[in-house]
C-alpha cells in the first residue's frame, strides 16, 4: 500500500472480473464521498503498486463524472511486478492512483477515426469508441486478438455494431488495413494501440498509402522506449559523485537506487515528471515529452528513458 501524493486519488477496489484468460478487470471507486474526475478518451491512471512504483493502465469505463473507474490488466509474468500486484487485489483493498491523464486523445476536427487495437492494446480504444458513439463521430474499429484473448470484444460489439471488424492474426490485420488505408476519406486520423511490432507495421502501411505523419497516432501498451543501451555514468554536479548506469537499467533507476529522490510517474518518457537539468554531455533523447527546441538546447533530459550519448552526462543534482 502506497500513500497518496498531493495530486493523487485515494481509490478502493469495488469490483473484480476476469474478462478472459490472464486479463482481469478492476473497478475502482472513491474511498470517500464525491464524484471522480471526468476524463478524455485514451486516458490512463498511474496506479501505485509499491513504494515509488507506478504502472499506467487505460481507463475503459464511462467518462463523464463517473462513479467508478475501470482498468483491464493482463498478467505479465515477465514484468516488474505491477500486473501481478493488480491480479492479487481483492474487493475492499485501497489503491492510490494519479488523476486521469491522456497522451492519446482523439483529434477533435478529424473527419473520420480509424481505431486499431491489438491484444490488450484494446483498452484505450474502448474509451475512444465510447466517446465516438456519444459525440456521433464518424469511426471504424479493428480489433485483432488471439483466440480466446478477447477482452472487451462484447463492449466493442455493443458500442460499434457494424463498424467493428475482429481479426485473428497480424497478417489478417495487415491485409485488411492495406485495403482500408487507401479507401477511407481524406481528413481521417488513424489511432493504433498494441505491441510495438503491430504499431510499426500499421504505421508504415499508412505511410506507404500516403498518409501524413500528423494523422497517425500510436500508444504502445508496453514501455516503448527500451531503457537499455551502452553503459555510462552520471556525474552529480553538487556532490561530484559518479553514478554508474548499467546497460539494462535506466538513469532514473540508477539514481533512485543510490537514494537520490527524483520525482517520477510514467517511466515512459511521457509525463514529464522526472525532468532533470543537464550541465554537460551529449544526450540520447528517447522521450516524447521535450520539444525539439528543448532537445536542441541540450540542458534537460528525462532520465526514465533517455541516456548519455558518450560515457558520461553531468547533472544538476
Amino acid at each position, binding site marked *: 500500500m502506497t500513500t497518496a501524493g498531493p495530486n493523487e486519488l485515494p481509490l478502493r477496489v469495488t469490483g473484480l472480473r476476469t474478462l478472459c484468460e490472464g486479463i482481469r478487470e478492476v473497478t475502482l471507486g472513491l474511498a470517500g464521498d464525491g464524484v471522480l*474526475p471526468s476524463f*478524455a478518451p485514451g486516458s490512463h491512471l498511474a496506479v501505485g503498486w509499491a513504494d515509488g512504483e507506478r504502472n499506467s493502465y487505460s481507463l475503459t469505463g464511462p467518462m463523464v463524472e463517473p462513479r467508478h473507474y475501470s482498468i483491464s490488466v493482463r498478467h505479465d509474468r515477465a514484468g516488474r511486478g505491477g500486473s501481478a500486484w493488480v491480479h492479487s487485489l481483492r474487493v475492499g483493498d485501497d489503491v492510490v492512483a494519479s488523476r*486521469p491523464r491522456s497522451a492519446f486523445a482523439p483529434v477533435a476536427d478529424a473527419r473520420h477515426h480509424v481505431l486499431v487495437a491489438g491484444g490488450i492494446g484494446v483498452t484505450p480504444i474502448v474509451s475512444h469508441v465510447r466517446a465516438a458513439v456519444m459525440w456521433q463521430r464518424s469511426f471504424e474499429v479493428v480489433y485483432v486478438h488471439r483466440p480466446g484473448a478477447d477482452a472487451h470484444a462484447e463492449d466493442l460489439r455493443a458500442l460499434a455494431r457494424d463498424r467493428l471488424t475482429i481479426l485473428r492474426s497480424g497478417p489478417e490485420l495487415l491485409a485488411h488495413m492495406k485495403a482500408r488505408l487507401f479507401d477511407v476519406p481524406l481528413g481521417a486520423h488513424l489511432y493504433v494501440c498494441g505491441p510495438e511490432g503491430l504499431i510499426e507495421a500499421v504505421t508504415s502501411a499508412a505511410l506507404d498509402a500516403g498518409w501524413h505523419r500528423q494523422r497517425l497516432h500510436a500508444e504502445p501498451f508496453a514501455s516503448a522506449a527500451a531503457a537499455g543501451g551502452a553503459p555510462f555514468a552520471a556525474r552529480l554536479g553538487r556532490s561530484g559523485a559518479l553514478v554508474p548506469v548499467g546497460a539494462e537499467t535506466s538513469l532514473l533507476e540508477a539514481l533512485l537506487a543510490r537514494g537520490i529522490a527524483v520525482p517520477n510517474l510514467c517511466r515512459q518518457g511521457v509525463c514529464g515528471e522526472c525532468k532533470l537539468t543537464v550541465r554537460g554531455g551529449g544526450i540520447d533523447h528517447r522521450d516524447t515529452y521535450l520539444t525539439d527546441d528543448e532537445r536542441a538546447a541540450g540542458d534537460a533530459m528525462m532520465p526514465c528513458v533517455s541516456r548519455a550519448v558518450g560515457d558520461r552526462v553531468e547533472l544538476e543534482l
Partner: protein
Amino acid sequence: MIYRNADIENYPFPFPRDQYRYSTNLEPTGRRNASAAGGWGDRRVDIDRRYRSELDERARILAADPSRSQCLPHMVPACWDAMLTLMRELAADYPATMRLDRISPDDNTFRWRNDLLGIDDTFTFGDPATLPTAPLDYICGQIQEDVVLLDQRAGQLWGDAGVVTFAANWSFGFDIGMSFLQIHGPVPRVHSEKVITRAHEFLMRLEPGQSFRRTNWSLTVDGKLDTATETYREWGRDRRTLAEGPLDEVGDRLFLRTEVQHLIRLPHSGAVMFLIRTYLLPFAAIATVDAWADRLYRVLEDLPHDMTEYKGLERTRGPALRWLATFGGVTP
C-alpha cells in the same frame, strides 16, 4: 457608474512593479492575492454585485451581434465540458444559490439550479434538445466571465469556440479558428522575448483539472465593457473626447481595466478553457489608494511607444498622467 468600497477592496490591481512589460505571468489559482486595498482571487468564477447588470449587457450585445458567440462543429463536446465544469465550480463556491445534482448515477442527466436567476433546469449531458440554448451560451448567461475554448491538436492550440462580449480592442469573430500563436501575432516585443511561445508550451502541458491565472490590463473610457473592434465606431471617439475634454473629468471618465484570466484544462474534451473576467475602476477610485495611484503613474510614464500603441493608449495616456499629477495626489 457608482463605486463602493467593495469595488476597491476586491479590485485586482495588476501592477507588481513600477514598470510593466509582457511576461509569462502565470500563477496557480486558488490563492488570494493581497493588494494595497484588500485582495482578490479567492475564486475562479467570481460573482459580484454587478451580476445582473453585466448579464443584461451580455444579452444585449449577443442579440445585436450573434458573432460574439461561436462554436466550430468539432468543439461541441468542449462546450458541454465547459458548461459542466463551470456548473460544478459555481455549485462548490456558491452553495447557497447554485446547485448541480445528478438525477441518476447511471445516465448523464443532471438538474441545475441557479437561484440568483430563478433557473431550475434538467438536462442530459451531450443532448442539445434538453437545453434552451447551446451549452456555452447557456452557462455564459449565468457568469460574468467571457469564455474562449482552445482545442489542442497537431502540437498547437486553436481558438475554436467561445462567448466573448467584453473584448478589449480585439474581435473574437475575427480570431475564431486561429491558432494561439496567430492570435498573439500582433503583440509587440513578445516574439523576440519568446513570451508567447513559452506560454503556449506551458498551456499545452496543463494536466486535466490543473488551472493557472494571469492578469492583463488596459484603459477604457466611460466604463464600457464592450470595446470590441466591431463596435469601434461607438467607443473609439470617447478617447478623443476625453483627451479634448476638461482635465477634471478624467478621474470619473477614465478607467483602469484589469482582466483576470483563468486557464483551466477541461477534463473530458482536453480543451483549455480561457476565462476572461473584466474589472473596471475609475481613476478617481484608484486615487483613493495612494500606492495604486503612484504605481499607475510610474507604469504609464514608463510604457514604451509600441506597447502604448498596441494597447490603444496613445490619446489617453497624456490625460491620465496629467490627472494623476493634478488631482490624484501623485508627485511625478
